């Protein structure tokens, strides 16, 4: 899995690609935590190129959501498809995260999204 970081205005976007599993999720966690503490008002995770995510990857996203409350960072996901979308729905977490269809929608709506999720 690769994670690339970029900025769109003042929003930090993490472009993830590949499989997020027990081996790779620590890398996503480290990057997510670092960016969450870096003071960006919003962090978005681009899941469009994630073909697989397991429970350790989902735990990382939940941890990011919890940290977003502490750091007062708006946090959302976009581009979910296939396995990633279905497992989030199966675990009923699609109602907990701010999830957007694509990047334009995410950038448009993240600033008006309830900032810290439902945890």
């Amino acid at each position, binding site marked *: 899995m690769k994670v690339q970081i970029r900025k769109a205005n003042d929003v930090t976007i993490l472009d993830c690609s590949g499989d997020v599993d027990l081996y790779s999720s620590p890398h996503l966690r480290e990057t997510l935590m670092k960016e969450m503490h870096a003071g960006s008002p919003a962090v978005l995770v681009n899941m469009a190129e994630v073909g*697989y995510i397991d*429970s*350790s990857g*989902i735990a990382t996203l939940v941890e990011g959501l919890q940290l977003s409350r502490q750091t007062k960072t708006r946090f959302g996901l976009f581009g979910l498809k*296939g396995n990633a979308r279905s497992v989030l729905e199966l*675990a009923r977490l699609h109602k907990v995260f701010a999830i957007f269809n694509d990047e334009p929608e995410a950038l448009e709506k993240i600033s008006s999204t309830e900032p810290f999720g439902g945890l």
Partner: protein
Amino acid sequence: MGGVEVTKIVTSSDPRLLHVLRGVVRYRAQEAGFEESDAEGLAMAIDEAASNVIRHTYGNRHDARLALEIWTYPDRMEFVLEDSGPKVEPGEVQPRPLEDVRPGGLGTFFIKSFVDECSYEENFPAGNRLKLVKYFARKVSASDESPD
């Protein structure tokens, strides 16, 4: 055992190799007739079970033994994951309630979501053998059959 052993993979408990297990399970499940979505679910169930072994049974050791057997029967596939770690108490392996939103605890939930049966082989002498079963068509229990 009465079935056909199609595949047996013996590997180390290295998380870098989990994608290999997922790939083999996906391929064998689709080859045996499961739809892509079921094959993906089975790959995730085996991935989660192997991850549990690596994290909990082996305490994140990456050099221990992990073996997967894939058996195909006319009505089902069985996936047997074998480790040589300390005995697991099946009662301790329970999914957390979904309303308790927190990091972790979903692996067992996903395993049970994607297979029809999940059990440990009781008399295995050393280590653990976890058997996951998926039927090609869900079994109809007596209570589901209504008399005409």
